[in-house]
């Protein structure tokens, strides 16, 4: 049974900005849901409406079957972790963590015990007497987490909680957040613009852009079956290649530059029925293979000159300039061409996406129907 439902939620600010438009989203009990999107996509407004910090312009926000649009934040039993930690600057760590309990007038002994317990879980016992200003970013973030978990709320709301931290700390805390979620089991909604973070912590990812929910699913869904060009470009740790293309006269091939990329029957049927030029071919770097030199007879290859080689360890990114545009390929470090070399690029067309003029992915269901 879903715990939280957004039903056609809209948020329009006084200046007319439409931050969230017709949002429909259901979050299941004990789920860890990430809302992912670039800055200004409406993800923060969504979270703040859920918290009660922002009023809802229209639509229904339902928690456990009860409409909570007008319930004040104090009565929603949700805890929030803010991007800037939002610690009380005048209070020590202990008092910061204790505040939610103080607000509920818990007995002193209980407060002391629970704060101590939380501090132990988060390994911040030694900082309890310090003020937030004397702590590092990572320590502050732990204090903010402590303040959220100390009162055992129904839900956690996290607004880019790791946004201000250094890269390696982020990776470490990511794992801890996931672990904490599994221990506490509370429903969590997590806002981020970082897809790596989203995939590392969450069960499902909701991608937002321009105030609208674009796609909801697991990371593999988003990678393999992006609904539109925005999702395809936003997801993927190495950006997807986007090349102008058109459907060849026979309808069986996709023409990219001078090269012909053969389409499967299903793909070609989809493109013929839905496609209008100009089309854009989207192909992920991991689905581009290389052969060096001009073997001559490959028809599916696009030739290009290697410009940049970026080693990543076991694999290497090759960036080549082709007549159709710049293409990145992710290849094993064993077989790397040298800069300036002319190579042939082969696309695994069964993993390709083709976007029409309206940026919708025309091949989205391709692999399922095959």
């Amino acid at each position, binding site marked *: 049974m879903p715990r939280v439902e957004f039903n056609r939620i809209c948020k329009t600010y006084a200046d007319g900005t439409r931050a969230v438009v017709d949002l429909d989203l259901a979050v299941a009990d004990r789920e860890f849901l990430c809302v992912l999107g*670039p800055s200004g996509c409406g993800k923060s407004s969504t979270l703040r409406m859920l918290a009660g910090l922002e009023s809802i312009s229209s639509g229904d926000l339902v928690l456990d079957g009860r409409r909570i649009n007008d319930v004040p934040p104090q009565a929603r039993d949700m805890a929030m972790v803010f991007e800037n930690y939002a610690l009380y600057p005048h209070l020590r760590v202990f008092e910061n963590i204790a505040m939610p309990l103080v607000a509920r007038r818990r007995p002193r002994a209980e407060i002391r015990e629970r704060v101590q317990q939380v501090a132990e879980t988060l390994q911040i016992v030694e900082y309890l007497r310090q003020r937030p200003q004397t702590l590092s970013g990572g320590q502050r973030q732990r204090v903010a987490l402590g303040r959220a978990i100390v009162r055992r709320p129904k839900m956690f709301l996290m607004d880019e909680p790791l946004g201000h931290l*250094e890269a390696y700390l982020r990776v470490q805390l990511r794992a801890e957040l996931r672990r904490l979620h599994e221990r506490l089991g509370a429903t969590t909604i997590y806002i981020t613009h970082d897809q790596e973070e989203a995939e590392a912590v969450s069960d499902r990812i909701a991608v937002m852009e321009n105030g609208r929910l674009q796609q909801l699913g697991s990371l593999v869904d988003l990678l393999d079956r992006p609904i539109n060009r925005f999702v395809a470009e936003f997801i993927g740790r190495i950006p997807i290649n986007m090349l102008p293309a058109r459907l060849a006269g026979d309808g069986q091939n996709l023409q990219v530059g001078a090269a012909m990329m053969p389409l499967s029957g299903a793909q070609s049927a989809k493109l013929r029925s839905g496609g209008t030029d100009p089309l854009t071919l989207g192909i992920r770097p991991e689905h581009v293979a290389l052969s060096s030199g001009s073997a001559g007879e490959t028809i599916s290859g696009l030739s290009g000159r290697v410009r940049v080689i*970026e080693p990543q360890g076991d694999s290497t990114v090759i960036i080549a300039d082709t007549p159709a545009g710049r293409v990145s390929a992710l290849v094993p470090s064993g077989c790397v061409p040298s800069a300036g070399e002319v190579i042939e690029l082969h696309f695994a067309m069964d993993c390709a996406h083709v976007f029409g003029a309206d940026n919708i992915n025309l091949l989205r269901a391709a692999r399922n129907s095959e």
Partner: protein
Amino acid sequence: MAGIYFRDIYKSFGTSRLFEGLSLACPDRKYLCLLGPSGCGKTTLMRIVAGLTEPDSGEVLIGDKRVNGLPPASRNIGLAFQNYALYPHLSVAGNLAFPLRAPIRRGRYRQAEIEERVKRVAALLRIDQLLHRRVNQLSGGQQQRVALGRALIHDPGVLLLDEPVTHLDARLRYEMRAEIKLLHDRIGTTTIHVTHDQQEALAMGDLIAVMRNGRIEQLGAPLELYHEPATAFVAGFIGDPPMSLVHARLAQENGNTIVQVAGSSLSLSEALAAQANMAPSREIIVGLRPKQVALVERPEAGAVATTVYSHGRVGREQQLVLTFGRDEVHCRTSSAIHVTTGDKVWLSISLDGAKLFDAASGRALAHT
């Protein structure tokens, strides 16, 4: 054009000593990445080249010229700051022209030439449409280009970049990385690039110097660092995920050297055994890449019992963090395997391709 050389640099801040005899060379026309966690001294080292910080002792050379004590302006360097440090009261063109109008270059450039250069650099960095904008009206990526342009405009002998792409979002960062590298291929200016991001350093550097606590841990080409880390610190810093570092003991069994890890014994290949025999003590650290550990569901011979600390996903795979005594091991498995935090699982470890480090010094065993 000139190389950059540090010789026996000492530097303290108050009572805390940062560099104690640091030496480092960046040959002419090379792209050197200084890589390390915050506080390792990489930015200070860059500032020493710029003359914004002076070492307590030791020599800094640009080309064959000793630059100690020389004011920053006379070192002929271009510097792009991490936060861009653009002049907010000037337009893009004003920012780009600022170094050319400096008193130290008075009379060197005529007005027409200044304008010409500004146009040329702006075109190179694709900001020619923005020349009359105020810099605070620009996006982060555009500001970054202006900062780069300002550093390049007077044809410096040395280019210093402090986290030049850190503040950009993922896609732009990826694009700018390639562009900066292409630019370097074209103009060939010796460049020092400061970063904390190992992926960025691997992708961009001709050379990488991994730094820690004011010391150079290792200097080498990117893949050299990846495949042959000189210290456990480098091994634990480079790669995504980096090597897992596991404390272990060397022991003898039937005349063969074996490794004891968390109660299990693992045998060593001949090559590794030879390395292990060079170890100064029995206590070692084993560095493992994720592909060397595999999850097995049942205890089997040679498998090591561990506990799941956390699990998440990376791309199509599942990434597990397993606790292993006081160590953590990163392991990748198919997403199909279901485990949760606290589960007991078994790991089969293959030591082929593992790296061995001395536990006390952290130095790689192997090459003597």
